[in-house]
């Protein structure tokens, strides 16, 4: 055996560990560890320094001191602005998810029932907008929802309303924006679930006398459960922490936690506070995130089974 072989054999007992370790190490270093650092900084205080926070773990006078500043978390709990922002974010994300589901389910269902060639084109048409810049599409809505924007022009012109609707810079605009941006993320998992639905089950139900609506509620909906959950998680979790949409469309009245994190970090330069906001956000989202992971795991195993 050549010396090169012997060296690699010693360093890497099994070649497959080389394949595993590269992405594993990357994600550990650049995804997992950063969250631990955020947790640590959340216990720090703002300071005029580079970086702009006080150290949590210090070695002074031969003593290793750990200074956990709980002030950030105290402020989060006591300041009504933060509490309101968290609750508002959950509310906006929740309602938007529901609307996405109500619009997306019929769309996914219809596409899944189309003949195979049309189906692929139909699906591609759903996905294509999300490949176009997210930022640009939100910008498009700015032009439409403004007071002198196209929606109001059209409605005024048709005589449906007398005075322009104030939609821009209100929470309603944020709702529209979130539903618009996240709709494809609801449709895709629903579609991949519904397309595997065995139509013979519905035929059997019909043969046994069930009306189409009853068959839908008792057979189709329960079977598409995993698709519904996946779609809802894919919309709700990122929507809670949304920043761009409420910032551009929602106006000052739309208080969402992503905006508070941003302003703590960029406007106030208070990195520890921003970290505390992030930690609490993650804690709130932990349950939905775990639900999503259980679904992901089952999906992958189901496919391999």
């Amino acid at each position, binding site marked *: 055996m050549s010396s090169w072989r012997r060296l690699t054999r010693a360093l890497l007992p099994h070649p497959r560990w080389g394949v*595993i370790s*590269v*992405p*594993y190490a*990357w*994600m*550990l*270093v650049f*995804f*997992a560890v*950063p969250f631990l*650092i*955020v947790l640590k900084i959340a216990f720090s205080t703002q300071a005029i320094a580079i970086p702009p926070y006080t150290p949590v773990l210090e070695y002074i006078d031969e003593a290793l001191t750990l200074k956990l500043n709980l002030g950030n978390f105290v402020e989060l709990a006591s300041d009504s602005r933060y509490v309101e922002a968290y609750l508002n974010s959950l509310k906006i994300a929740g309602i938007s998810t529901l609307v996405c589901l109500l*619009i997306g389910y*019929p*769309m996914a*269902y*219809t*596409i899944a*029932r189309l003949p195979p060639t049309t189906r692929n084109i139909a699906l591609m*048409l*759903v996905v*294509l*907008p999300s*490949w*176009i*810049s997210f*930022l*640009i599409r939100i*910008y498009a809505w700015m*032009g*439409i929802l*403004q007071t002198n924007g*196209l929606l109001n*022009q059209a409605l005024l012109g048709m005589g449906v309303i007398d005075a322009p609707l104030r939609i821009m810079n209100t929470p309603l605009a944020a709702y529209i924006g979130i539903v618009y941006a996240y*709709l494809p993320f609801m449709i895709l998992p629903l579609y991949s679930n519904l397309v595997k639905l065995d139509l013979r089950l*519905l*035929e059997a139900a*019909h043969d046994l006398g069930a009306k189409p609506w009853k068959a839908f509620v008792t057979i189709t909906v329960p079977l598409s459960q995993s698709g519904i959950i996946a779609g809802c998680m*894919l919309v709700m*979790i*990122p929507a809670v*922490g*949304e920043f*761009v949409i409420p*910032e*551009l469309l929602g106006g000052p009245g739309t208080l969402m936690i*992503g905006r508070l*994190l*941003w302003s703590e*970090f960029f406007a106030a330069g208070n*990195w520890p506070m921003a970290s505390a906001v*992030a930690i609490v*956000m993650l804690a709130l989202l932990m349950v939905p*995130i775990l639900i*999503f*992971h259980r679904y992901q*795991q089952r999906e*992958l195993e189901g496919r*391999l089974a």
Partner: protein
Amino acid sequence: MSNAQGASWFGRGVLTLGYAFLYLPILILVIFSFNASRISTVWSGFSLKWYVALFQDDSMLSAAWISLKIAFLSATAAVILGTLAAMVMTRFKPFRGKTLFGALITAPLVMPEVVTGLSLLLMFVTLFGPLGVSPKGMMSIWIAHVTFTMAFVTVIISSRLAELEKSLEEAAMDLGANRLKVFFVITLPIIMPALLSGWLLAFTLSLDDVVISSFVSGPDSTTLPMKIFSSVRLGLNPKINALASLLMLLVSTGTLIGWWHMHREEKRRQRDLQLALQQG
């Protein structure tokens, strides 16, 4: 009468409205990029002047160039790492820590961007700070983009690998090929369309990212979405309409070419299969 086959009228109605909802804003954006007046909501004639103004805006062009470079490099790295991760998830026997690996790989799919951006910046400060290197800059943006786009690429390639019949790979191994050769000669060519769509998706996501880039970019590495965002915050600007139309043209053309190419490949493969069956 059951609607066991074919879509109902209600379904088709919702579908059409849904498409209108998805596409009208985009269409309006493109139309108004040709608007002669500066007011982005009142049409006053056809003009190309915003496109001209766009190409004369140097800061916009340099931001575009930076974004394209980063997007290209991020997508390539994301596909390489994503393919490795997908192989591990679908082809490797369960090992200790595989569940954690799976969770780590797919977590960025649902993580709010402000959280990812903040955590990555703090990571770079911890990592690069002591070395005297600035934590913000092109390198940081590249690492950040690879990290969060890898999740999407891995999901795409994993689902393709999971659908792929193992019999081809097993046959090759029975004929004596080692695992590496099997991967490069058999698996890779078959999953190539998934790799390409993963690359394209990662490219698009990187090109579009504003939140994460804002956290980790330095003063000399302003990306295009960051420029667009700061411009748009001040109000509507037809130059942005023009830029948006060009970007959409770029992405749509790429996607359509990719889709048409895949379609042709699929047709060719069907034809080859037919021929093989006839001769066999």
